[in-house]
């Protein structure tokens, strides 16, 4: 009797296991084709010479050497840092403003959040085309600036301003989302800490830097990591707004990979680039966490 029950339970379990395994297997087959196989090709391309139609020829570390020495690739990697130099202050400033704003407005919270998040879900292509017009020399932004202070700003034809323009567009897109992340951190700060700070006669600025910002360190880190990933993945906005110009000053690694593979027809070179770019973004994220991550301890 008991053995019979055991056996039937065992059989039921194995039927369950068969279903589970075959479902997992369906995904693994898909991943093998569209994930592992490309992964294998990426590794293969990085150590061979190939031009889309011939057989790959093994060249060892030559691609790596060529890529590291490529001045355009160096420029593109440098541009990531130039982008971050503009983007981080704008994104963090804006996100903090949104977070404190959400905390402040109370009843209209959802409306304010939706206004800031609409840019996040809308189309990158459409938005880039709109900002191309807004930033153009005769566009509404310049018309407004001219009427206000009498200058026209060459937004897309000056190397530094062009990068600022790209950073502004990308910040416009993500500030709402980052703000929401920081706001979720603000919600976790216990009221008593502020009361204690007020009792100690802490000024608002002291409160911000000594209490609020350290308390939301996990959320700030999250925004920083997202911002780094965004900066390495940048393509649509610079591709459509500046085309990488003037003189490669807004060319991003993803644009370089695209140009190298499909315009200059050097896929091996491009494969090496994409591995290096992923590695660089991983290392920068790691460095950022080492430098700025703090454990929040409420004693």
């Amino acid at each position, binding site marked *: 009797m008991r053995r019979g029950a055991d056996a039937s339970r065992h059989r039921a379990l194995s039927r369950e296991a068969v279903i589970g395994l075959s479902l997992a297997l369906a995904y693994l087959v898909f*991943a093998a084709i569209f994930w592992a196989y490309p992964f*294998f090709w*990426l590794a293969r391309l990085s150590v061979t010479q190939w031009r889309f139609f011939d057989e790959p020829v093994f060249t060892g570390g030559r691609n790596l050497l060529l890529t590291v020495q490529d001045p355009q690739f160096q420029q593109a990697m440098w541009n990531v840092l130039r982008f971050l130099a503009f983007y981080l202050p704008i994104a963090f400033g804006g996100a903090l403003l949104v977070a404190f704003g959400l905390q402040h407005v109370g009843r209209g919270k959802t409306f304010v959040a939706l206004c*800031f998040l609409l840019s996040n879900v809308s189309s990158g292509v459409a938005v880039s085309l709109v900002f191309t*017009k807004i930033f153009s020399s005769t566009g509404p932004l310049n018309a407004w600036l001219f009427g206000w202070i009498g200058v026209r700003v060459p937004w897309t034809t000056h190397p530094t301003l062009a990068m600022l323009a790209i950073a502004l567009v990308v910040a416009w897109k993500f500030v709402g989302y980052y703000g929401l992340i920081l706001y979720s951190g603000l919600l976790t700060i216990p009221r008593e800490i502020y009361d204690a700070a007020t009792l100690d006669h802490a000024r608002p600025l002291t409160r911000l830097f000594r209490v609020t910002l350290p308390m939301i360190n996990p959320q700030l880190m999250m925004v920083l990591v997202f911002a780094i990933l965004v900066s390495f993945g940048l393509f649509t906005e610079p591709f459509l707004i500046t085309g990488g110009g003037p003189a490669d000053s807004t060319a991003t690694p993803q644009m370089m990979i695209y140009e190298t593979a499909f315009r200059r027809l050097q896929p091996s070179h491009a*494969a090496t680039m994409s591995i290096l770019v992923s590695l660089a973004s991983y290392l920068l994220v790691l460095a950022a966490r080492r430098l700025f991550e703090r454990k929040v301890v409420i004693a």
Partner: protein
Amino acid sequence: MTRESIARLVRSRSPGGWAATIGIYTLALTWLYPFAWMVAASLKPTAQIYTTGLFEGDFSFDNFRFLFATADKLDRPFLQAMGISAIVTLSVTASVIVTSAFIAYALARLRFPGAKLFGDFLLLQMVIPTTMFILPLFVLIKQLGLLNSLGALIFPSMMSGWGIYMMSQSFRAMPEDLLDAARLDRASLWQTVMKVVVPLNKSIIAIVALFTFTGTWDNFLWPLIAISDTDRMPLAVLLATFSKQYGGYAGPVMAGAVLQTLPLVLLFLLFRRHFLQGMALTLK
């Protein structure tokens, strides 16, 4: 609102607090300015876009008419591109939802050898940036002979590790007795998932569907690489090439931008609760 309650509301905040409130609402509305400008520009003759104020000018649907009728003759079939975008986006979304629901059910609720390893594999996949794969994916699609076809846009996205992972997290929280009941009734896999699991997890399924939809509709780099024939291009790519070649037609370009944005904005406004919920989920 009665006068008293307004008075109470006014008194409840300091002058500085009121300034901050007005400031934040102003900033929020400023954030919408590019959308307002886009819609206004799409309704004006190109010559008036830069010379008139936001709400001035001769508004008409001429730019949209141009896009659907004249652009066709310039080898820019916008109506067809919208159809392609719709087909690709809907089939990818449908496929991702169905496959994710079943596989996530297996991962979350069925005991099978290697289940833990499978979950770890999904996490590993999510850590590695997808942009790295675009070039070798092109090689694969070329080998399969799928370049310049809708298959190139649909097949690589038919399943989503992220979708499986998100759903499985939610499926784990379901009460066991409902699944026990299904088991006692000898419900098939199909019945269990469709009749028990899906109705109990509508929220997460909506979230996965919405984010898959917006991501696919607005995908740019991959279709730019995989599709080179203008009559196979999805809207995002056709619009970009049109703008590059006929940038002078600012009005029609903005009309195209409106068409590209409209489905996303409508979905966002209709399902705003799910979007906010989904964004909150990714924060955990």
